């Protein structure tokens, strides 16, 4: 069977575009066509929306909230025209990309998966979006997410969930479930997500693709609608390690508009290699326990063996405070969120529910605009910061955070990278965890420690679990050493022992 344009990686597309085999318009049309076929969108206008006629039998993926079809075609035509004029274009010019609906992008509503911002057209552009556009990428549209990035399944989106391309009865993970599903379903070769406690890594694992949470401070947060400012970081998804690295490289860089943006240059990303001689990798004992399902642990052990066979030295490493990570995270992140989301009050933008007084208007707007999970977290955070509780909750959690970061830096004096399964289990079914917030939160148990420490971490596929769903491994590296992630990841990706990559979504949807 001939490979479709949508089967190609970004690197392959870049070659075809550069040598003139295909035009950016053809590449864009191919991806739009696939979205129109499989994503369940209403294509009757130039901006496609999620098709409202969905029911329980719906098997569409619903990765996108808005597909800016006309705008994408126009951008593609512009790039083709520039190329025809002989202009020098960036390496990936003409390659489509999908963007999580949490980055401001004038021209498209930025909804954050919330009713609160259902009709909000941001008056300014996120730095990351500018970087994508400057790199000649073609933004296809904005992808679905858990409301304000709070969730692990996209079930908290105000606009309905996204389905997992591997099995539409399963969640794609979250909160960046739409961006992950878009790449897994080959609606785009790569996409942008954001990760606060695992929101890139967990959906990458659930949908069988690669996703990286960069070192905190290396990708600008300007224009990223904040969930938890000290943890939020935008990062790339792709189906291959090399594509992930390429998008990551486009996104990163200092931004004077973000005070937490780091000025130091990070090492360049390595070329693909399979040789890990001299590399020491630590396996985090606390994150390889019986809380993880046996098939996940089995694939993980296969991966460790594969790494050894590539010349890496594997040792067990203890992060004694890692088991407290989730508890600390579920105090710190909601605390910051309670303050970050205070601005949604019906005064300056977004939803307003009318009332007699400003105070009632605020309260009713917030009650109707926010979903249940967002309200829960706002209340947890408000409580954790309130008088009499601050020391026991927010402050204590921030101290535990220091100890977790210290555990990591101690570990990195012995090892170059750390390893754990990305999630305790494979993708779960819709509704399986919605009634029990803590059960849902536990899917982040392995990803949260790296978030708290700010270190770079990545998930990549390492095969299929007993249920036929993808399993992911998490690689972690020291601050600013995102390059190490890719070095280790290339070796895993190119190990034939491990079946990688998602099954084609077309068969799933046939």
């Amino acid at each position: 069977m001939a490979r479709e344009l949508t089967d190609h990686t970004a690197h392959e597309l870049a070659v075809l575009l550069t040598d003139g085999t295909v035009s950016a318009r053809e590449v864009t049309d191919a991806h739009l066509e696939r979205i129109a076929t499989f994503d369940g969108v209403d294509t009757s206008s130039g901006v496609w929306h999620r098709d409202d006629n969905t029911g329980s039998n719906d098997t569409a993926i619903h990765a996108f909230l808005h597909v800016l079809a006309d705008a994408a075609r126009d951008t593609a035509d512009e790039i083709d025209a520039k190329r025809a004029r002989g202009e020098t274009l960036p390496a990936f010019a003409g390659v489509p990309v999908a963007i999580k609906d949490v980055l401001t992008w004038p021209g498209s509503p930025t909804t954050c998966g919330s009713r609160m911002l259902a009709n909000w057209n941001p008056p300014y552009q996120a730095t990351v979006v500018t970087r994508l556009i400057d790199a000649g990428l073609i933004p296809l549209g904005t992808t679905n997410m858990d409301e304000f990035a709070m969730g692990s399944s996209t079930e908290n989106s105000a606009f309905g969930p996204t389905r997992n391309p591997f099995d539409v009865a399963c969640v794609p993970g979250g909160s960046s479930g739409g961006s992950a599903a878009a790449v897994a379903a080959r609606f785009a070769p790569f996409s942008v997500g954001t990760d606060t406690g695992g929101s890139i890594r967990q959906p990458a694992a659930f949908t069988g693709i690669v996703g990286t949470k960069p070192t905190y401070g290396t990708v600008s947060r300007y224009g990223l609608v904040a969930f938890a400012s000290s943890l939020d970081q935008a990062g790339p998804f792709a189906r291959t390690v090399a594509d992930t690295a390429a998008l990551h490289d486009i996104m990163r860089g200092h931004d004077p508009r973000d005070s937490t943006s780091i000025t130091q240059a990070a090492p360049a990303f390595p070329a693909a290699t399979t040789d890990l001689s001299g590399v020491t990798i630590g396996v985090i004992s606390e994150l390889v326990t019986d809380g993880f399902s046996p098939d996940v642990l089995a694939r993980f052990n296969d991966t460790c063996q594969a790494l050894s066979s590539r010349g890496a030295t594997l040792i067990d490493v203890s992060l004694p405070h890692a088991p407290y990570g989730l508890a600390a995270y579920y105090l710190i992140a909601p605390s910051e969120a309670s303050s970050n989301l205070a601005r949604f009050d019906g005064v300056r933008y977004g939803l307003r529910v009318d009332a007699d007084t400003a105070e009632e208007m605020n309260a009713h707007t917030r009650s109707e605009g926010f979903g249940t999970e967002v309200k829960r977290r706002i209340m947890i955070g408000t409580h954790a910061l309130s008088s009499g509780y601050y020391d026991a909750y927010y402050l204590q959690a921030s101290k535990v955070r220091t100890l977790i970061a210290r555990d990591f830096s101690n570990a990195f004096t012995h090892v170059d990278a750390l390893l754990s399964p990305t999630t305790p289990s494979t993708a779960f079914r819709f509704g399986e965890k919605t009634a029990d917030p803590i059960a849902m939160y536990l899917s982040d148990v392995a990803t949260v420690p790296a978030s708290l420490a700010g270190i770079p971490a990545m998930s990549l596929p390492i095969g299929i679990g007993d249920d036929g769903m993808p399993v992911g491994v998490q690689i972690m590296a020291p601050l600013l050493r995102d390059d190490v992630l890719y070095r280790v990841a290339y070796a895993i990706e190119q190990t034939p022992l491990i079946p990688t990559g998602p099954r084609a979504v077309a068969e799933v949807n046939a």
Partner: protein
Amino acid sequence: MSLPEEDVRHVARLARLFVTDDEVALFAPQLNAILGYAEQVAEVAADDVEPMVHPFAPADVARDDIPSPSLSRDAILAGAPAVEQMRFAVPRIVAEEG
């Protein structure tokens, strides 16, 4: 530490959320469960540990005091739910100021 329904209402007020009785009944046990889980942090001996505000951030990031273009008033007001006299309009304010 548990959070009785009365405290749920107090927290909702602080967070300026309107909550119905049903929501209070739903949230109270959930918030208690989450806080109960989160209270594990108390098990860690951390008295002498500095709290961490930023995972990795430089100090003294500042910009020069040089004006940059503002957004047009139309652009800023375009997103507003209610505008009057080129200002953001809100119903009468009754609560106290900070």
